[in-house]
């Protein structure tokens, strides 16, 4: 085993172990408040209570998504362990990346590199839904492990076997969360950049070496597509694909996004923070161009750098619509671009570059810490506020004179109440659902949420409210009496129907709908 690990440069000496332990501790400290408070998002309600099954992700084509949970936690979403395991695999994955990119091995270099990436607020977006925290952090590990193994194929006697093993490591994350393709693309492009710049190899030789990685990725992508054909998932938004004919038209958008993403402020990543990150990116890129000693080399380096940056923004966006500026996709893309630029600074032999890397990290890691803790505080405040509303709602329903615990009700919640934005007062250019906008009490999860803390199971989870439930009395109530929460007429309980009204807009929509039915 040790021999095998050594062959692929995966053995850990004292420096590696020390940096792994320090990084893991630091990452866990940064997200400790979330870990201890066991905050869970609006997709988690059922899974927190009933657990996950291997087949839970099939309907949306994510056929490997819950393998890690079933194997590691028996399909349960467990407090503390969920985050710990996720961060454990993320730490190991980033350590392999440091080796893949051949960053000079010192404890400080590795700790800075791992901690910086893992604490960028994009990681937060994977903590909002606890049911995918573990798997989506684990995919980084698999994708980078695949890259590391595939880098050795060119010099191996077992090219075919190794290509298929690498493809398997790409196939697992692609089957769980396809945008992980961004990580593979950015990290591979970055590796080509590093090899070209620091190993003075010809581009054709580099392509010869890394062609096997591309083959492995293509095999994995093909296998993923084939699997999707076989399992026939439902027609859900995240399986929507761009027609190939439209892809060329999208190229302009891609270039635009690639540039804008560096200056776009989002919740917990304000403009000042983004500017410092951009300065780091520009410094590293300037350094890389200056390091190339001929015009041709400079131009090639510039092209490779542009391709690396484009890889972050485009790989998913090119084929799946509406995926720009989504923080959890950016976690697999632009976050790796930032890490790439840090790695560049750490790789230059010039002492100034290393000093700059240290200065940037002295600014950015504390910035990450503050942003992450601010987010965790706001999430917790938001969740507490929304769950207090839920508790008041439960009390109102249970004390309603028509309420009967033995009845099974058809339930409908009209509108959401999202409280996290109430506690966040910073400015941002682009709102982000997972980091801030999404409510815990989501409209489509109301039926499960309303009885989550109740002693009784009174909601019919199979049959939702249907037109046949709309009696003249209910029609009259909805059209004339109903008002949004917290009005006393924001709840309707009668016969086998419970309706909760949280927003005037949704009430108006509902009114239009029942009018149409008439």
């Amino acid at each position, binding site marked *: 085993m040790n021999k095998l690990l050594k062959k692929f440069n995966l053995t850990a000496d004292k420096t590696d172990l020390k940096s792994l332990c320090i990084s893991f501790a630091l990452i866990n400290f940064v997200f400790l408040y979330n870990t201890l408070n*066991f905050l869970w998002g609006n997709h988690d309600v059922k899974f*927190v*209570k*009933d*657990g996950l099954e291997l087949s839970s992700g099939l309907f949306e084509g994510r056929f490997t998504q819950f393998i890690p949970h079933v194997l*590691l*936690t*028996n399909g*349960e*979403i*467990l*407090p*503390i*362990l969920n985050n710990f395991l996720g961060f454990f695999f993320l730490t190991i994955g980033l350590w392999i990346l440091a080796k893949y990119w051949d960053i000079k091995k010192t404890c400080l270099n590795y700790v800075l590199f791992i901690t910086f990436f893992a604490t960028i607020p994009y990681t937060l977006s994977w903590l909002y839904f606890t049911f995918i925290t573990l798997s989506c952090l684990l995919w980084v590990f698999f994708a980078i492990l695949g890259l590391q193994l595939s880098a050795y194929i060119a010099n191996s006697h077992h090219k075919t076997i190794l290509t298929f093993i690498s493809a398997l490591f790409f196939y697992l994350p692609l089957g769980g969360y396809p945008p992980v393709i961004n990580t593979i693309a950015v990290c591979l492009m970055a590796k080509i950049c590093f090899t070209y710049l620091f190993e003075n190899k010809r581009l054709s030789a580099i392509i010869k070496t890394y062609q096997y990685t591309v083959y492995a990725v293509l095999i994995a992508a093909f296998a993923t597509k084939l699997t999707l054909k076989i399992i026939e998932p439902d027609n859900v938004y995240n399986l929507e694909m761009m027609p190939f004919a439209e892809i060329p038209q999208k190229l302009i958008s891609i270039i635009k996004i690639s540039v804008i993403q560096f200056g776009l402020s989002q919740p917990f990543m304000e403009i000042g923070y983004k500017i410092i990150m951009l300065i780091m990116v520009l410094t590293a890129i300037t350094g890389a161009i200056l390091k190339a000693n001929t015009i041709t080399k400079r131009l090639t380096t510039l092209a490779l750098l542009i391709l690396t940056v484009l890889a972050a923004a485009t790989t998913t966006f090119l084929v799946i619509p509406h995926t720009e500026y989504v923080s959890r996709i950016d976690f697999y893309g632009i976050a790796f671009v930032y890490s790439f630029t840090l790695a560049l600074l750490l790789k230059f032999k010039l002492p100034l570059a290393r000093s700059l890397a240290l200065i940037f990290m002295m600014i950015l890691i504390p910035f990450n810490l503050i942003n992450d803790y601010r987010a965790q505080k706001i999430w917790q405040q938001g969740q507490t506020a929304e769950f207090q509303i839920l*508790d008041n709602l*439960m*009390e109102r329903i*249970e*004390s309603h*004179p028509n*309420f009967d*615990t033995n009845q099974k009700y058809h339930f409908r919640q009209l509108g959401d109440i999202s409280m996290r934005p109430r506690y966040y007062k910073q400015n941002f250019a682009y709102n982000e659902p997972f980091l801030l906008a999404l409510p815990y009490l989501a409209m489509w999860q109301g039926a499960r949420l309303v009885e*989550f*803390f*109740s*002693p009784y199971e009174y909601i019919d989870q199979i049959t939702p409210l249907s037109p046949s439930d709309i009696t003249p009395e209910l029609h009259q109530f909805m059209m004339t009496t109903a008002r949004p929460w917290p009005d006393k007429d924001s709840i309707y309980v009668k016969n086998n129907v419970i309706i909760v009204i949280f927003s005037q807009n949704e009430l108006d929509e509902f009114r239009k709908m029942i009018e149409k039915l008439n």
Partner: protein
Amino acid sequence: MIVGNPITSGLIEGRFSQYLLPNLLIDGQIFPLINIILGFAFYALAMALLYTRFFDFKPSFAGTLSLCAVSILPYIIEILYFQFIILSQLFWPLTITLALLAAKKSLTDHPLIFIPLSSLILFFTIGGYPAAINLYLTAALLFLLQNASEKITFKKLVPLALPFITSVIVSFIALYAVHQGLQANHKMMALYNNQPLSLKDLILKIPFMYKAVVLSLLQPQPYLSLTLKLIMTTIILLCFIADMTNRKDSLDRLFHIILWLILPFCLKFSAWLINENPDEYFAQHDPATFMLRADFYAVPVFLMYCLSALNQKNYHLLKNLSFILAFALLGLNLNADFNYSKVQKLGFTAETLLQQRINNRITETAPFDFNNNYIVVQAGELPLRPHYYIAKPLENYGYYTMQIPSTRYWLPNEFYAFYEPENFVITEHAILPENITPEMRNFLATNLKTWPAKSSLYIDNSYIILFLTPKGRQMITKQFKNLRSSK
């Protein structure tokens, strides 16, 4: 939680030393974090001392893995259920270890000092929690098993076992004397957990004990899945087989078989002694042989011995197997313990929210007045932890770990006013016949509704009666009808 644990709190059930340590260290208070951290520190020290000093196992990575795996066996979760005894319950393994080390030391040095010392520490420990004796007896027997590896005669065995046997006898005599004294002074009540069986009953219970031990190693319980139990049983069986194959002659083998046959009584010694008939309020309704709190003292150390003994054998296969089993045990235990934390937190939150809703209803219902003192009668209980637990096939028991709510119907004075600005509840929780008014009679006799129906609540100037569950309502109505018919 509010007033802390006075040093004499345990006297009522004969546990005179139970609150000495909490009073000494943290003024008898129940503190968040500190209670558990201190408790775990003592427990970890005890396990490490047992491993390195008492059994003299060589420290190794595999050994550390085994030690970690057995230390977090889900038996510990029942200890964590009661905040008020966490610190002392986790301290007893350390005192037992010290008693064991003193007895071991007496084999080579100053027996007249170390045997009384061992007896004294043991007396102090079983005075706090008698079931802790299981650890002493199990470890002592395993020590004999370990040291009887060479051909051993009865003559050699007696001096080896004597310090341990003497300590147990002396400490039990002393405990008996203390219990007699406490009972004579009306300080101690006869409860389910301090009523030993007669000698005749103990003998009659022997076949039952063997059956119970085998069953308890196989019967899935909440958080102790069948997989976990099978792994534990495999470890024990492997250790037994390895021990038997190491024996050179039949006499030697016979002697070891006898020790293995005594082992079940050491593991479940407290269950063997105890009267199984539960009293009404305090009893835990699981059979004593399935009581996780008692098993916490013996099973982990037994498994630690088995894993470490296998690991110290010269066979690579056994070493590898013990490593894999320890690793699997660690993973399963982590899952079970974190699952317990999740279920406990969600269940406790749901029960607290329910209590808040009940209190809101009470305070909004006329003629409730905060200036009055009420007898609160809660008919029934609503344990909500099972709502958040995915039960595995064949699971049974789990009284404290799963079945009961955090708020008990017989302690309304402790939780109905816990978060209220004024205490409006008095200690009594029964309806006195002379206090029954016509309105109350009408409510008790005719009301069929239970919570959350509006009519499930009755309030007058001195009583608050809540029909929380249909079962609770039936019990109260039945008691009321019995009362009427007896009149």
